[in-house]
């Protein structure tokens, strides 16, 4: 019915959008350039939607408490955890991680912890942010 359609259209003009524009409010012509500007701090990012409690984000690894039992390596489905024989610790490739959290569950020392960080995309998977304990 035309009246319902017009009513809906007017309502949609006045209500908040269902999506949250991220990282910037208006789509830039060049996303890479915008990302560089954000990195320099020249452009402010539009805040993301609230991250829920117990979110499975980038995993934090506490190297000091690790005892080198290799249990996490045995349950990691994507081989994101590699055991380093020389120092008896693990190396974590974030780019391969599936965030299933089986290492978090199995670690007897609780060395792994989920963080809220979800911006883990990058151009170089060997970069400093994406390899923990290289």
């Amino acid at each position: 019915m035309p009246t319902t359609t017009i009513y809906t259209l007017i309502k949609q003009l006045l209500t908040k959008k269902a999506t949250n524009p991220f990282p910037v409010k208006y789509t830039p012509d060049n996303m890479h350039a915008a990302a560089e500007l954000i990195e320099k701090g020249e452009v402010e990012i539009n805040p993301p939607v609230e991250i829920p409690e117990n979110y499975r984000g980038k995993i934090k690894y506490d190297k000091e408490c690790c005892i080198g039992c290799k249990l996490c390596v045995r349950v990691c489905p994507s081989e994101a955890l590699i055991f380093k024989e020389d120092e008896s610790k693990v190396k974590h490739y974030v780019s391969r991680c599936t965030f299933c959290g089986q290492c978090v569950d199995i670690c007897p020392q609780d060395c792994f912890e989920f963080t809220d960080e979800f911006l883990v995309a990058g151009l170089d998977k060997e970069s400093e942010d994406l390899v923990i304990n290289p």
Partner: protein
Amino acid sequence: MDEKDGEETTYEVPIGPIHPALKEPFLIKFKLDGEEIVDADPHPGMNHRGIEFMGMHRNPVKVIPLSERICGICSIVHQHMYTTAVEHAVDIVPTNRARYIRTIMMELERIHSHVLWAGVAAHEIGFDTHLHFTWKIREKVMDLLEKISGNRVNYSMWTFGGVRRDITEDMHPDIDETLDYYLDLYDKLEDIFLGDPSIRHRTKNIGILTEEDAMKLCGVGPTVRASGVKKDVRIDQPYAAYGDLDIDYVIPSRYDYEDVGDVFSKTLVRLKEVVQSINIIRQCVEKMPEGEITSEPNMAALLNKLKSAEGEGVGRIEAPRGEAMHYVRLVEDNEDVDCWKVRASTYNNLATYAPMFLGEQIADIPIIAASIDPCIGCMDRAEIVDVNTGEKEEYTDEELHELSVQKTERMLGGIDE
């Protein structure tokens, strides 16, 4: 093939594997007489991913996150079937609370899957506004799944003997709010998909699957329930907590519609199942028993137990698309999963395409193809088929032999040089 004055009057039109009307790689060869389809021949096997092979080179715990990646929409379904198959093989019994949490998660996923399907169906017949509307309202249940499991898709909730995350009392208001949201919107959804005259025109009496054909071709899920076949694993062989709950088959005649088996009936069944799922989740939240969420809380001990475990197991489930099954075999001297076989619901439903397409027009192909809610990514795992759809469609034995001889000659020539 009909012939008039020595000229062929039927044409063969291949649709797929890559085609704008299809969302996934999949081939159907149609024989057409003018606009009318006189024969449809589905050819699966265009999307082989070797996921079972990957699973057979990993230990059972590593396969849990892998199994949910078989399908992007019904990831809980595959995770549940795989875990129940292993539980069956090594005699692990999930706790009561875990059974209820599993049921809630599976039903939330059914809501999300059916609402998503409604959007795809609307898109196929040209109503993109409805696509955006349904996909927008689907976000609500995905937010809830994220709140419970920590992620929107690939929930990683299951473990052998239970679940890894609890649904606590403080999540109940969120669940209630989400269910109310869908109940409030249900009338609008019904108005759009069942009441709108233009959608009725495109779906009523289109792609009919009769009850007889549905039984003969072993179709599963909403596809055959729309034809009036009472078939639902949740009721026939209850798993998880379904045995304790009050549920009934969703078939059109329960709601004063005829069991026609056309696209309209399939839409109706899926929409009514959303309400059924809401009802089931309400019952689960109410009846949820106290206790542990898993019977194997020590993962390291579980890993050692599975290392030398032996046995065969089967996991069955009523996925949003219909019945699906996993088979797992573990042997003592192999730490990895020895054999893993997945049978997804689309594999059964593909056969129902043949009678559904007969007599319809080319323009109806997308909506009829979408009406079984095909998931080719789930289904295509075991077959490797090389079909050249361009100049040559099939190789005969002689031609293959000739090719083989030519290759041998080429290789021999290389050695000589």
